[in-house]
């Protein structure tokens, strides 16, 4: 014949409940810690992503400024050359016309005074 089960005393039951409550608190702490760490992981990633994007925007801005300066320099060079060409051509025109003006005037006068 087996021994009848020992009925726990009220005090024992209170102890057991406290024991389980402690376990539950510990479990909750583990989960809370995990949630906090999870939040930190995501927040850290978002912060890194924002930094990456902002660095990229700045990099592109700098690239744009650099290229604009390069192109502007090239453009100013082209304009300066055009102006130089114009001044040289105008000077050539002046020089050639001074040489040939008399010839043209004589030709015109002759043509105007000569009839059939």
């Amino acid at each position, binding site marked *: 014949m087996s021994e009848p089960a020992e009925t726990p005393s009220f005090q024992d039951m209170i102890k057991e409940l406290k024991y*389980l409550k402690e376990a539950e608190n*510990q479990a909750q702490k583990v989960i809370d*810690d995990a949630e906090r760490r999870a939040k930190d*992981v995501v927040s850290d990633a978002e912060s890194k992503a*924002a930094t990456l994007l902002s660095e990229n925007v700045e990099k592109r801005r700098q690239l744009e400024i650099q290229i604009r300066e*390069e192109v502007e320099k090239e453009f100013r060079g082209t304009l300066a050359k*055009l102006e130089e060409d114009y001044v040289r051509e105008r000077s050539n025109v002046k020089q050639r016309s001074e040489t040939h003006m008399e010839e043209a005037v004589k030709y015109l*006068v002759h043509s105007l005074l000569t009839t059939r």
Partner: protein
Amino acid sequence: MSKNTESLEAMRRKIIQDADAEALRILNQASKRADEVMEAAKQESSYDENVDRSRIKDSHQATDRERVSEAMSEYTSLLSSYKAEIMDSIYQETLRRVKMHVDSDEYLPTLEGLIVEAGIAIGGGEIIVWVNQDDTERASSSLLARASAEVTKVTGKETRLTLSPEHMEAVGGARLVQTESKATVDNTFQGRLKRLREQKQSELENMVFG
């Protein structure tokens, strides 16, 4: 250890194990989300610098090509204006020298030649001759008679040149109007120069500017 104690310990272990599993799930999920955020950022910020450089450069160069083209047009136009000024000064000088000829004794045969040439061009007939005030005296009846005979001879049409009682403004030369047809030939020096400029413009410009 009593049975009761064993059962209690198992329950505690289960609670802690479940919590650990849940914590692990939460951390895994966070890690996955963090990876996604970083991946999206990398994709958004990834670009080929050479492609970007080329795109930006092309866009600026297109604007500059327009500016260069405008500058070239402006210089071409300035050069054309400068050449036109030179040609105008040549025409002015030409008329000044023609005026010197008009004031000389050699002008009379020239005037007669101009009248005959215009008379032939108009085809002869009854013709009114317009000249400037100074030339009204030079274009004498004998000069007009000689010119009429010459025009008749060349055109084969009986011609009579008559001096207009009114005069016109001109350096010299004559304007002839056929009475019947009202056909007009402007053989003043200004009229001749105008025609010369139109007909010989490129030849003259080549002569002057090379």
